[in-house]
């Protein structure tokens, strides 16, 4: 007779030996570092070109984002339509993304077309012309998108909390406005492009089952570009000036039925010895579906569809962020419960079985997260951009496997004090 009450024998995930598949680094004639992750069974390739061209480097707000977006909007020999049509004809995806520190161009394509696509990626990096009309269309469309987003409480909350944490003038705390879009000029964009793309510095990651002539392909297409920037341009590394006042209630829409909540504190970057330990504590606190915040506030009380906490992914400094949207009538109660969960972690050691469960989950999902060439390249990217080595990856695993309840409680007492948190609800 089948015993359905008893759990079948489980192999503890913490017993798995996890390894980060290696990359091979080549340095092109012009000094650009390229990291190759040659693995995978499906004939697809990803190339991620990362420039130090985030908003940390801009002098006029939104210049970095506009420059990055418009990389696809015209070169000397191709207009925006021709560029899009070229990549789409091969079923390739060319995405761009601008953040605070870096700005990226990412190509996903079928392996069989990779070689044909590279010259045009290179062309966008060196030969973009930023037509006036394209900029006007961009400004108008972004302004309209902003108008819609400004009606969303969650969007407002996301902007405001960063301003509190880092100060309104820090690149992490600055945000878009109708006026700043209107003030964008082609000259400013071209200047930024010249300094941070054409003559800037980039790092390239390529992953997938790579063609045999990959070294030659990359050298040919990118090795002679005039990328003369220093290994990492002086980051604006602006002073982080958190604001003084900690608690905020903002009314955005009188008819709203939910409040968008952010509770957050500043947190050191990945080089701080507490960072990886905090990831374990955070996992239990609000890091996944079975976390304490989810168990209490969603699964026990039904105040929200979802609540999460996480350490933000930034190079200069991180933040511990708790984020949710909760019914208007239970918004304050939700905030109260978040603090109660912090208090519990400070006052009571995490029970051994809860910690063991969480460790198994973290290792098991890490195993899944390393499954595939693009995922592996993503890990390397995070290490390399943050100035870390693979030791960091293995140290993280050791921390997950070995950390004790006492150490986590100490960490909670150091970082989970209600008084240190900014608290915001937008209705």
């Amino acid at each position, binding site marked *: 007779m089948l015993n359905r009450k008893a759990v079948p024998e489980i192999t503890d995930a913490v017993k798995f030996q996890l390894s980060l598949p290696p990359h091979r680094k080549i340095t092109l004639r012009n000094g650009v570092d390229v990291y190759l992750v040659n693995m995978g069974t499906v004939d697809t390739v990803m190339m991620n070109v990362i420039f130090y061209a985030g908003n940390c480097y801009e002098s006029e707000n939104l210049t970095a984002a506009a420059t990055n977006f418009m990389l696809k909007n015209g070169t000397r020999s191709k207009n925006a339509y021709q560029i899009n049509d070229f990549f789409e004809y091969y079923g390739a995806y060319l995405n761009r993304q601008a953040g605070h520190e870096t700005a990226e161009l990412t190509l996903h394509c079928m392996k069989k077309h990779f070689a044909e696509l590279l010259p045009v990626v290179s062309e966008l990096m060196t030969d973009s012309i930023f037509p006036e009309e394209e900029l006007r269309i961009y400004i108008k469309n972004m302004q309209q998108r902003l108008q819609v987003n400004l009606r969303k409480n969650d969007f407002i909350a996301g902007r405001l909390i960063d301003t509190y944490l880092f100060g309104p003038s820090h690149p992490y705390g600055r945000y878009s406005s109708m006026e700043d879009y209107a003030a964008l000029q082609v000259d400013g964009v071209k200047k930024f492009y010249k300094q941070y793309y054409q003559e800037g510095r980039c790092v390239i990651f390529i992953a997938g089952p790579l063609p045999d002539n990959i070294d030659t392909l990359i050298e040919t297409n990118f090795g002679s570009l005039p990328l003369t920037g220093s290994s990492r341009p002086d980051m604006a590394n602006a002073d982080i000036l958190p604001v003084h006042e900690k608690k905020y209630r903002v009314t955005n829409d009188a008819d709203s039925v939910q409040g968008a909540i952010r509770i957050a504190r500043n947190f050191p970057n990945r080089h701080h010895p507490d960072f990886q330990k905090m990831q374990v504590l955070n996992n239990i606190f609000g890091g996944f579906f079975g976390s304490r915040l989810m168990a209490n506030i969603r699964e026990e009380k039904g105040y929200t569809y979802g609540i999460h906490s996480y350490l933000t992914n930034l190079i200069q400094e991180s933040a511990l962020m708790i984020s949710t949207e909760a019914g208007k009538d239970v918004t304050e109660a939700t905030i109260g419960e978040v603090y109660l969960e912090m208090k519990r972690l400070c006052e009571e050691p995490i029970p051994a079985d809860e910690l063991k469960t969480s460790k198994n*989950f973290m290792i098991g999902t890490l*195993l899944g997260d390393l*499954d595939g060439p693009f995922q592996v390249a993503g890990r390397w990217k995070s290490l390399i951009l943050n100035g870390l080595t693979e030791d960091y990856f293995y140290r993280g695993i050791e921390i997950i496997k070995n950390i004790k309840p006492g150490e986590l409680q100490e960490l909670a007492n150091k970082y989970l004090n209600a008084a240190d948190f900014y608290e915001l609800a937008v209705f």
Partner: protein
Amino acid sequence: MHIDYKKFTLSNGLRFIVHEDHTTPMAVLNVLYDVGARDEDPGKTGFAHLFEHLMFGGSVNIKDFETPLLMAGGENNAFTTNDLTNYYIQLPAENIETACWLESDRMLSLAFSEKSLDVQRKVVSEEFKEHYINRPYGDVAFKLRELAYKQHPYRWMTIGQELSHIENAKLTDVKAFFFKHYNPSNAILVMAGNINTEKALALAEKWFGVIPAGEKYIRHLPAEPKQETARRMEVKADVPLDALYKAYHVGSRTDKSYYAMDLIGELLGGGGSSRLFQSLVKEKKLFSNIECYHFGSSDPGLLLIEGKLIKGVPMTTADQAIGEELEKLGSADIEEKELTKVKNKTESAILFEDMSLMNRASNLAMYELMGDVSFMNTELEKYLEVTTREIRDLSGSIFEEKNSNSLFYYSNN
């Protein structure tokens, strides 16, 4: 890319598919139930989705679904559509039996806890508010479905027609729904990843094969009558911009016209070189964004176009401009090169989608639901067979004025 699999039918009628992939350390267990929002009572909409939430509230022998799964290093989730409900677990392959144990117990029977129902009613209400009430244009999908469907249950959303339907759900409804739809006769089981077929089959027999077959649910849904005149709805709402939505009736996922229809959507709205974007956003500057999409639904579906108007552009001008683009597709053959482009895009999209073990597992189940799992490996051929002539003919019939549903969504500020 050819996906290898083996298909079995267990003695209780449960269809079981195994896909071996020894390049990954992981395994996926996927269970698809042939029930979606279209199977709901019109007075109790949103139930299939609410029920999906309850599937995590404990089963007959296992009080806590989550903890053993985490102990096994696994993660899981589920989704509900108008057509189906799909559950999946991904975990290190060594622990696949834990997934079998958990998933088979909730196919056997649930705990039916009043407390769980009470909480999940609230959670789903918050989900409803977060996605559909507390955001601008949040009610559009509700209105479009009501406009386009008069008889077929696609006229309501998966989340439910209205909040009260969810708030009023009773435990007796939950039980009746479970015993009607959640049994081996109405399910498809897939195991994929670093497992071998023989062992997988033994596990399936052991945990799932012994569950009583249950009654096969036979679907009798009212067919949507052919739309004979153009429909239009106007709405004024507290939103910053005017928006325009168009919905056209198209065939089902298994209709032979599906592949050409999907390519038409891609020609019109797929990416920066697509027709609507290039003409209406870039050249004529009438919209700040425009998209074209469909849901690939099991019963005859909709091809949708939506865009936000540039401030100051009259609605009729925008509507007419869309009409002109649609008319072009129906009145002349497109260049062979443009058709090749959207076929290449499709080939690439399929390849990228199949990279993920989880996607492969759920797609195997979905193709089996469509009629035969083998369709998964013949899909691309069917796209490649589409001709410019078919694109033209099908566009002509889809974009007939009398087949259109237009929603003019005006900003009142």
